[in-house]
């Protein structure tokens, strides 16, 4: 449905143009939840913003394609891209309260979106807005309509954001860490809400997160990202049972598992700075399987089995 093909993004910094995304390739299957998982700073949010063409100033798309229904979004003119956003791809963000305009009541933006994307009259839009708020699980939708963002809790704001996204009637939803800034109990509720809506509406969701537990909960397919590259891509059960890339293995081992007495094992070393990328494969300084070819050149994606791709020179030697 939506295919990202060799997407490259550079950042203009004091040290010159620094590559931030090195050829990201992934596919969102229609009607499925695809996860994009990785640590902070690996480029997940940049990927999402690049797809939406909302990259902030120091970032620039320097190559690649984003195919949606046969069109390359990166070649569209600004006006055309404005029509794609919302109507065809919607996005919800990490900080829900900061993503709502603070000087307008919820009703204002919700009605505006409904009138724009669904051509409703003012009165119909207001009614539909309240219905949407109820659907995302908000009690007393009429009060929420009149409220301002600073009156609402983080969880409520995220529900409002989801309602706004639903109002657009898009088929694709990009969710950038939708639960990270919320309390744990609220996280579960939002996850349930998203899962329910996805099943009901057949949404195609790109779920960006650093939380492997969340991935296990609702994703169908997962992409693991490191240093601006997709290093492994697999169906979720396969990723958790037989991870191929040493980084993925490291992530799995660093989780706290309930019912297990094994202590979590961290990955030694740190995520490299953008401007100081190691040569060759960026993971090699931290990799237990490192070999001479890893220092010389970056790995290319290889097929492990159907639907499972890994980007590593020596994944076979680690296969258990």
């Amino acid at each position: 449905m939506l295919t990202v093909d060799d997407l490259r993004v550079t950042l203009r910094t004091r040290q010159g143009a620094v590559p931030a995304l090195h050829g990201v390739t992934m596919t969102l299957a229609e009607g499925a939840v695809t996860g994009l998982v990785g640590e902070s700073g690996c480029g997940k949010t940049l990927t999402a913003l690049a797809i939406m063409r909302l990259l902030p100033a120091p970032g620039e798309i320097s190559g690649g394609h984003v195919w949606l229904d046969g069109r390359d979004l990166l070649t569209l003119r600004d006006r055309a891209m404005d029509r794609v956003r919302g109507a065809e791809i919607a996005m919800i963000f990490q900080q829900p309260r900061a993503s709502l305009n603070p000087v307008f009541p919820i009703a204002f933006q919700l009605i505006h979106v409904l009138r724009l994307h669904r051509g409703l009259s003012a009165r119909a839009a207001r009614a539909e807005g309240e219905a949407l708020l109820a659907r995302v699980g908000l009690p007393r939708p009429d009060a929420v309509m009149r409220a301002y963002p600073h009156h609402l809790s983080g969880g409520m704001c995220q529900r409002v954001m989801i309602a706004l996204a639903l109002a657009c009637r898009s088929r694709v939803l990009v969710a950038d860490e939708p639960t990270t800034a919320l309390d744990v109990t609220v996280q579960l509720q939002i996850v349930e809400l998203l899962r329910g809506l996805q099943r009901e509406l057949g949404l195609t969701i790109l779920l960006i997160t650093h939380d492997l537990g969340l991935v296990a909960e609702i994703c169908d397919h997962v992409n693991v990202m490191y240093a601006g590259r997709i290093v492994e891509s697999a169906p979720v059960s396969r990723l958790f049972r037989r991870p191929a890339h040493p980084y993925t293995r490291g992530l799995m081992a660093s989780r706290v598992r309930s019912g297990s007495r094994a202590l979590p094992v961290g990955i030694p070393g740190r995520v490299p700075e953008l401007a100081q990328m190691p040569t060759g494969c960026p993971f090699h300084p931290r990799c237990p399987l490192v070999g001479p070819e890893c220092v010389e050149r970056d790995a290319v994606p290889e097929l492990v089995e159907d639907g499972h791709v890994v980007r590593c020179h020596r994944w076979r030697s680690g296969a258990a």
Partner: protein
Amino acid sequence: MLAVPVLLGVTLITFVLTRVLPGSPIDAIAGPMATPAQRQALLVQYGLNRPLWVQYVAYLGGLAHGDLGSSFVTSHPVASDLAAFFPATMELTTWAIIVAVLVGVPLGVWGAVRQGSWIDHLTRVLSVAGVGLPVFWVSLVLIYLCFYRWHLVPPPMGRLSPEITPPPSVTGFLVIDTALAGDWRAFSDAVRQLILPVAVLAFAAVAPLARMTRTSMLDVLGSAHTRATRALGLPPRSVVWTYAFRNAILPVLTMLAIVYGFLLGGSVLVETLFAWPGMGRYAFNAISGNDYPAVQGFILYATGVYLAIFVAVDVVSALLDPRIET
């Protein structure tokens, strides 16, 4: 800012400053021929022989009743003198602010939306010039070019040319009062007299307003909620003018109050050059004549107006920003 201690402090500083004025008003009032006995009598008459703190308390008492004392030069109550001159300054500064907002705010928005465009560069040049070029110099340049060389405006001799009779006073704004009276000849004369001094003050005011608008807009345009608004597919014009603008004007309002303070100071210079019968010129004459009560009255009056503007801005900000709970 309006706390009682601050207001008291303002009156105290004003009182101290004017009492420290060199020269004695008695010289001006009595004239060079007065005998020592006559001078002493005048001292007593004006209460200037009492200890300073007694004078201050008496002054405060008078203030509480709205009495700013009587001018040594004109013998009128200062309060009524100032009230008579206030409308002229008010009209000047109000028109200047209106023009500055109408020009500066859109320029700032445009500059933020289209960074690096020729409008953005023009705005930045204008801003730097408006802040840097002294108000009195710009006045002189404009008077020279527009009056002396090109004869575009009437001679700078005040609010109306000498041969025009002023209309009955309703608002104190000549432009409005002449229109209300249907006196179109006076109307056009009043407007033509206003053009240059308003242009000068507006030019100085446009600069900080445009810059603040631009900075504020840039800030808002880069914010998380703007990104979310764009992600919902709302058209760019709505994003800028409906959503971003409403957030961006809040700091601009505060800047308006500060700019007004500049204009109050600048009006002293501009009114002197354009022979404008306002508070600024009154102040200048008062200082030259060592007219204590008049100088005190002016400083307090101008400061009072300034503080009132801040209060007004606070009120409007609270109305416009739902995050401020009134």
